[in-house]
């Protein structure tokens, strides 16, 4: 694998490559289609040949012959290692503790990594009705850790207060000490178009650890709805290698379904 950086790469490629690198030691990943799938596929071909992708549709160990257009596409079933029903998938595989990393998207992320995918405005009289939890609240509680990929980074997407907490961080769960606490770490990593935010402690808050090439720490702080903590040793996000970009374009997403 070439280690020279690619001269040209898109923001999407940068994000996918950054996510793939973080999957070097994960055994099982619960992901939706789109960028997370690309990241897992890239990790599989580069840093982690044993990584296994699990879809909430019940498929484990998919070997699709063509690019999947959805987590329940027929091509992720044909030739897969296993298909289990959703009761087993959510009960035994996910809640049972067999998922190391869950990927989630979100309309809003707060400083502790709680996520809103339900509504902008009030739930009772919404401005925008969003898709809701799906499996997100379940993944947040039970995956070893959660990666979030955001398509935008501004104070609306990273607000001081969520309009609605769909998937609660352990910090928010801890406000209910009379409940059995969820076993998951919650969000460990948020990858945005500006940089990478991480939480290092289960009850800690997100801090900026990497800024993308050409982005300043101040820009990221301004684009964030709370007073964003900054790591002592903020790095510049590593540019994708030429080989990684080649794999993404020529082997993984040849039809440019997600690489936009």
């Amino acid at each position: 694998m070439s280690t020279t950086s690619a001269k040209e790469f898109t923001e999407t490629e940068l994000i996918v490559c950054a996510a793939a690198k973080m999957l070097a030691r994960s055994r099982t990943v619960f992901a939706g289609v789109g960028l997370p799938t690309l990241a897992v596929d890239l990790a599989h071909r580069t840093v982690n040949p044993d990584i296994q992708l699990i879809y909430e549709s019940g498929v484990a160990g998919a070997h699709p012959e063509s690019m999947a257009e959805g987590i329940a596409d027929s091509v992720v079933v044909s030739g897969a290692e296993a298909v289990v029903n959703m009761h087993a998938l959510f009960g035994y595989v996910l809640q049972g503790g067999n998922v190391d990393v869950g990927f989630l998207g979100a309309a809003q992320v707060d400083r502790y990594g709680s996520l809103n995918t339900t509504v902008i405005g009030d739930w009772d009289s919404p401005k925008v009705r969003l898709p809701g939890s799906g499996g997100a609240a379940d993944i947040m509680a039970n995956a070893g850790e959660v990666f979030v990929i955001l398509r935008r980074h501004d104070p609306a997407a990273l607000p001081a207060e969520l309009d609605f907490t769909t998937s609660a961080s352990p910090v928010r769960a801890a406000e209910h000490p009379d409940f059995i606490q969820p076993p998951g770490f919650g969000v460990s990593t948020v990858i945005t178009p500006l940089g990478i935010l991480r939480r290092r402690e289960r009850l800690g808050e997100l801090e900026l650890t990497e800024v993308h090439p050409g982005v300043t720490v101040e820009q990221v702080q301004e684009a964030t709805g709370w007073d964003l903590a900054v790591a002592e040793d903020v790095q510049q996000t590593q540019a994708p290698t030429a080989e990684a970009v080649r794999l993404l374009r020529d082997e993984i997403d040849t039809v440019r379904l997600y690489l936009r």
Partner: protein
Amino acid sequence: MDSDTVVSLPEAIERYVEDGATVALEGFSHLIPFAAGHEIIRQGISGLTFCRLTPDLLSDMMIAADCVDRLVCSFFASGSAGSLYEVRRRIESADPRPLEVEEYSHHAMTLRYHAGAARLPFAPIGSFVGSDIPGINPDIRSVVDPYSGKKTYVVPPLNPDVTIIHAQRADRHGNVQIWGITGTQQEAAYAAKHVIVTVEEIVDEEIVRSDPNRTLIPAHAVDAVCEVPTGAHPSYVQGSYDRDNAFYREWTPISKDPARLQEWLDTHIRGTRDHAEYLQTIGADRLLSLRVDPRPSGTVDYGRRASLNEGTVK
């Protein structure tokens, strides 16, 4: 069960789906019972409580046709088509009428069917601690775990009046076989008072009985089996036809425009007599393009007691 289990889809819907009923139509992307939902629209059934993890295009259609008063679900979007605009109009601006919504997570919906199927008073779930979902859904409650002394959230059983699913095949007794993604169909079926299964094909019972582990829902849980080829279009049937992805994409502009949406329903559903006519409006060329090439499973051996051995049974 048995003799009168095999009926036409219109007859099954007429027999079991009443105005105001609680109806589950399940199938997670795979095997969505579109033909049955369309028949509900044709028969003008209204006031339904519609249960489905991922309401999807089917709910957009059924809500636009004014069949549904209430949604019980966990995800309000279509993976490929994005927003469901009829659903959004109803929820965001009560246009043309409000829509009640009772919402869960996927695991919670699965557990509601599970508890309903197993006649349990509730099912515990590890999700929701710190989430705002229990705050907007008073049916998500909590109990104290008698082992740890801490609380856990629980969800109540969901027992639809009717559960409708689509499957690759069944025999005439109602033994239903499914492969590919099996979703929550087994729980949703056992949870219901009545079960309607549309199938691509009613097969000889010898075919079903050659592979009993493939039976997801045994005959004792099934009231009606209806042979409805291509009954999951525009969703897909593993091994038979692929998802009509173009249809899903075309839905967005239709769904965005209430007039176009009603026109679509008139042309394709209310203006057709049955699913066969619906398929004609879609067009043979288009359906043909969804065909998949074969990729057969292997066979396994169930064995048969050797004659040699039989004499030694006693």
